[in-house]
């Protein structure tokens, strides 16, 4: 298990007050995680000791920057157990990962009559790029509904997956319902009809062991800023065979082999998809985040979140008028709980919690379709990570009860 007090000491922000004399209770890790000092220092060390552009420099700084930056790619590769570092494309965030996939793979492979299948519990990042590319190519976008329990409707899935389906793109873990989907099984079902399988790993990779070879997914996108790493960097994993067959997307320096004014030929993987000066400090920071999570042990991270989530499900169920979205037990879900409270709008909840120093998110969490299906405009969401304590969950419950009182409920 994690020694949570020791973990907390790694996060400088946990010593900061949310308001004067009101300590911070950060329950918004699913939106963006806090950063341990090890990650911050790795980036400082780049900026203060060996800052230089990468890949083309012969001098010491550039050599060192290149080797640490490319070393970070290999750390990510091992973290998700990708067969090769060539399959780790560094992008800005999960969102850019899906756009790369939709524009490059989708643009080259989709045509009228083809279907792209997503689910009704996707984040906008895994909806909008497919809408755009379907409109451009004439393919049709379909979606798998979810049940009242907040799990994917497997019967519907079996009907929707047909030989028309060219790709099934779904989230491994929902950022609202908390649902952990049976990724390996879903990938197999996609493959069984000859479709590719793309996984949204944004809420999965930070929280548990993820093994792309075990899942056998064809693509997976995720963001650094949700896994103790910096903003400005994320990953698209793809099988080399597929990535090699895809056309480049963005053009520019580093992604070319030879440029004439008439025509260019393109570089090898992963550089073919990485145009221009990369997010160097951010790549290095992501590498440090992977080191940090590895040192904690992803099994420990997962066990800690399961324990906190169990505790929170129990504690929140005692708040009058509170409805929890998604599966009822921690075993089926990741480290977050979204909820509504009768006659108390999520914004007002978040505002009143903030007065007590408690940071939660309120809104549609970039999942408008899911909220619409559930008949609500917004929800409040508390999300947990390696530094979350049961005391913080207790503080949440106390503050929710106070919010109800303010609203005369």
């Amino acid at each position, binding site marked *: 298990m994690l020694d949570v007090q020791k973990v907390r000491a790694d996060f400088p922000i946990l010593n900061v007050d949310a308001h004067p004399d009101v300590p911070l209770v950060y329950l918004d890790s699913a939106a963006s995680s806090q950063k341990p000092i090890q990650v911050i220092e790795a980036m400082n060390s780049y900026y203060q000791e060996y800052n230089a552009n990468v890949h083309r420099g012969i001098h010491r700084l550039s050599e060192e920057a290149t080797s640490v930056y490319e070393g970070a790619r290999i750390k990510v590769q091992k973290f998700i157990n990708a067969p090769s570092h060539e399959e780790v494309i560094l992008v800005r965030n999960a969102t850019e990962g899906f756009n790369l996939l939709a524009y490059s793979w989708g643009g080259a492979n989709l045509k009228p009559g083809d279907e792209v299948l997503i689910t009704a519990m996707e984040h906008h990042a895994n909806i909008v790029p497919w809408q755009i590319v379907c409109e451009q190519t004439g393919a049709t976008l379909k979606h798998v509904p979810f049940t009242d329990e907040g799990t994917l409707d497997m019967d519907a899935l079996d009907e929707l997956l047909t030989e028309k389906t060219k790709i099934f793109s779904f989230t491994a873990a929902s950022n609202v319902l908390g649902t952990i989907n049976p990724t390996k099984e879903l990938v197999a079902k996609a493959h069984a009809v000859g479709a590719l399988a793309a996984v949204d790993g944004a809420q999965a990779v930070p929280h548990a062991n993820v093994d792309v070879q075990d899942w056998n997914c064809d693509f997976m996108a995720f963001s650094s800023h949700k896994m103790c790493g910096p903003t400005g960097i994320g990953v698209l994993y793809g099988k080399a065979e597929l990535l090699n067959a895809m056309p480049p997307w963005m053009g520019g320096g580093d992604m070319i082999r030879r440029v004439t004014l008439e025509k260019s030929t393109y570089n090898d993987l992963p550089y073919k998809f990485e145009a221009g000066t990369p997010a160097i400090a951010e790549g290095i920071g992501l590498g440090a985040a992977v080191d940090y999570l590895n040192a904690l042990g992803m099994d420990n991270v997962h066990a800690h979140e399961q324990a906190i989530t169990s505790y929170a499900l129990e504690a929140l169920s005692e708040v009058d008028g509170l409805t929890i979205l998604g599966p009822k037990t921690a075993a089926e879900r990741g480290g977050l709980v979204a909820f509504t409270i009768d006659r108390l709008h999520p914004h*007002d909840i978040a*505002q009143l919690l903030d007065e007590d120093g408690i940071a939660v998110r309120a809104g549609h969490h970039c999942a408008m379709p899911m909220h619409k299906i559930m008949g609500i405009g917004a929800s409040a969401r508390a999300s947990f990570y390696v530094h979350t304590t049961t005391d913080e969950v207790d503080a949440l419950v106390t503050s929710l009860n106070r919010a109800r009182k303010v609203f005369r409920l």
Partner: protein
Amino acid sequence: MSADMYREMILDLYENPLNHGELDPCTFSHEEDNPLCGDVVKIDVLLDDDKKIKEIKWSGDGCAISMASASLMTDHVKGMTIEEVMELNGQDAVDLLGVSNLSMGRVKCATLSIKVLKAGASAVQ
């Protein structure tokens, strides 16, 4: 803070909104949402022959701030001409609420209904 932001008047209006509902027929109707949070407000307006607001109703879904603001704003503009409406700005909406410490994000809640009204009004100007 809540003492100010969630004071009696705002909570009262949240529970018992003014001018809530829809108008049919109406001169114009406009709906918009706050893309960042999902709050929605629809405003229906009936003008009289002098192009003054004769009747106005709002409906929608949102937080106490945006809903109270819709009540106050719709009350405030009754009898105004379209030109007068177009003169209003976000600060007027905040002033109507009488809340002094709205953060950047919540200002958008407070100003949603005035934005919706002006967008609708500009079409008939």
